[in-house]
């Protein structure tokens, strides 16, 4: 039984990681919904502006994803964030989606920052760890008969 557990451990860890990443993805989507907006205007004369509803919609429209898992020394790892590919048409220009997300998250000289990604990291951290713990505990119980 122990040998079987050792063989299946990477699979169990990957499964737990997948569930944890799902929690972080959900939290990021939740925070993206809370981005404040104002109707689009060009930031003329050095005035700063809020993101437009169109920019918020691009960020919300399911561009947040979980990256392909990769092996490292301790097991496997992944990232949650915006896809490197994908463009949106805004004010007649083709703009990369991660660039829009980054502008809102970190701010620019003409846009006030709303750090929704950093907020999601803190807000989802505890829940993600709990979900991953539960996933591993369930695996152990399943494989040891709960003893």
């Amino acid at each position, binding site marked *: 039984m122990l040998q079987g557990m050792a063989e299946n451990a990477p699979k169990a860890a990957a499964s737990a990681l997948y569930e944890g990443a799902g929690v972080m993805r959900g939290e990021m989507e939740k925070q993206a919904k809370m981005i404040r907006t104002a109707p689009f205007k060009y930031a003329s004369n050095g*005035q700063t502006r809020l993101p437009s509803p169109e920019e918020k919609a691009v960020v919300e429209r399911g561009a947040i994803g979980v990256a392909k898992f990769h092996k490292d020394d301790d097991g496997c790892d992944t990232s949650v964030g915006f896809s490197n590919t994908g463009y949106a048409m805004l004010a007649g220009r083709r703009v990369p989606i991660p660039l829009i997300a980054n502008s809102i998250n970190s701010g620019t000289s003409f846009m006030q920052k709303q750090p929704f990604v950093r907020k999601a990291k803190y807000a989802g951290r505890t829940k993600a760890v709990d979900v991953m713990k539960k996933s591993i505990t369930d695996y152990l119980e399943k494989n040891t008969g709960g003893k």
Partner: protein
Amino acid sequence: MPDDYTTLVAALKTLDIPFAENGWTSRPNVNTYGVVQLDFEASALNGDNTKLCSSYEGSVDLFSLSRDGDGMVEAVTEILDEVCGASWSLNSHMWEQATRLFHWEWTFEVDDAVHDEDNGDGGTAADAAGNG
């Protein structure tokens, strides 16, 4: 407002560039300027149905037309070192094509012991809860 944050804002405002708290409504007409703000509560320690200690995450942004930030990059990091100790990092460094401004973004964490009164044996309420 955490004391460390107040100290940080005061120190940044002594620099030779305009530094605004909580953003600019209109960009200042200078080569280099900065923004400092407290972004959100990162974590908290609760006990006895009260909040004993909170940790806040904030950010410092520096915008500059020159690649070295007119020497302000070192000045800002020195202030962060002094006020925040090890709890800060350079989150991003970007360049804006439209304005040709370089943008540095540092994030930091400061904490605030909400119930910091003495609990009778020389420690604070946060100490009593094991928060050091």
